């Protein structure tokens, strides 16, 4: 394969060498600019969001049905020392919401204008 390419390159050997280096550089550039970025979404270590396999749950609507979630089957803290806190019926750390405030400022209480938008997929 490569000896065949070498034979097909025109010119004397220093010219062939230069041609081979240029050809190699072109291949690498095409890989880095076009091929690898296209392959990347399929690689297994670029997924950082919670969305896989879920069909656009409406997180802002209280009437939407809860999307099927396999979490209930997950043993809590599987594979890691997870500090288990209250999960249902209370925000984490809600008791000391104003604990760090020093009484100087207030939490702005404005309605969260959460617009219904699909999760990225």
């Amino acid at each position, binding site marked *: 394969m*490569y000896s065949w390419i070498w034979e097909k390159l025109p010119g004397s*050997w220093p010219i062939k060498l230069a041609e081979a280096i240029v050809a190699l550089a072109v291949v*690498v550039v095409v*890989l*880095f600019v076009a091929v*690898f970025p296209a392959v*990347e979404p399929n690689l*297994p*270590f*670029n*997924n*950082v*969001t*919670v*969305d*896989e*396999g*879920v069909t656009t*749950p*409406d*997180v*802002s*609507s*209280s009437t*939407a049905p*809860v*999307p099927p*979630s396999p*979490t209930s089957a*997950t043993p809590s*803290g599987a*594979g*890691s020392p*997870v*500090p288990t*806190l209250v999960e249902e*019926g209370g*925000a*984490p*750390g*809600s008791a000391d*919401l*104003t604990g*760090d*405030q020093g009484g100087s*400022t*207030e*939490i*702005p*209480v*404005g*309605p*969260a*204008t*959460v*617009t*219904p*938008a699909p*999760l*990225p997929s």
Partner: protein
Amino acid sequence: MVPVGTDPPSRLDGSETGVTVIIPVKVSGPSGPPQGDRTRRAVGVVGEVFITLGVLLLLLCVYQLWWTNVESAKATDVVRDEISSEWETTPVIKSATGGKPGTIARPASGKGFAFLYIPRINDKVWRLPVIQGTSLSVLAEGAGHYTSSALPGQVGNFAVAAHRATHNEPFRDIDAIKPGDKVYVETKAGWYTYVLDRYKIVKPTDTWVINPVPSKTKETPTKALITLTTCNPRWASYERWIWWGHLTKATAKSDGPPDGINPRSA
């Protein structure tokens, strides 16, 4: 071993330089090489294909481990400058009542609108741009804001995702964070201090973690929370690492950054 079809070397004179080059020249003509030669050539081609695949995989590693970081670092700087210059050239958002930050408009998709500061992992997360949306192209430029989640300081859940490996890996050291660590968020309107409370490793499908109240039941939020999501394990990402925290302080931009925070240096 009997050399089959050994090629006689040909001589080329490097004339002036006096270099003598010996190049093997194939002599087996179109009449067809002997059987052994053909097999040898087939094995050689297969070997070359394997070597080529190996080199391709090595190049892919170089791309992932090095080049994506180079490109993302550049892209992050560009977005950072865009946000800074936009904040400098348009008037500061003020609230009706002094002391509290005003409300920023919901940013357009792909637009940077905030900076993230986490002192514990400040070599990666310091003035890290937060960009609206969580597509791969957004995550290559900084942290991505889950479009439907709350904005900084709002009641609800301000949910952010970022890479833990490749693409500048902002959340590389997510496992170094400890409960009680602070996260500062800077917007055009103000500074927000969150305290991280707990983490959990969940499945990628557990979208409840970014709910306004992070639970499986749909509850009406009463608190302003923050959620950080990234991949786990770092190089496999078949799980998600989730940090939750709550807002403790919000100040107007005119009051300057929180104590001990110098936005320009960690």
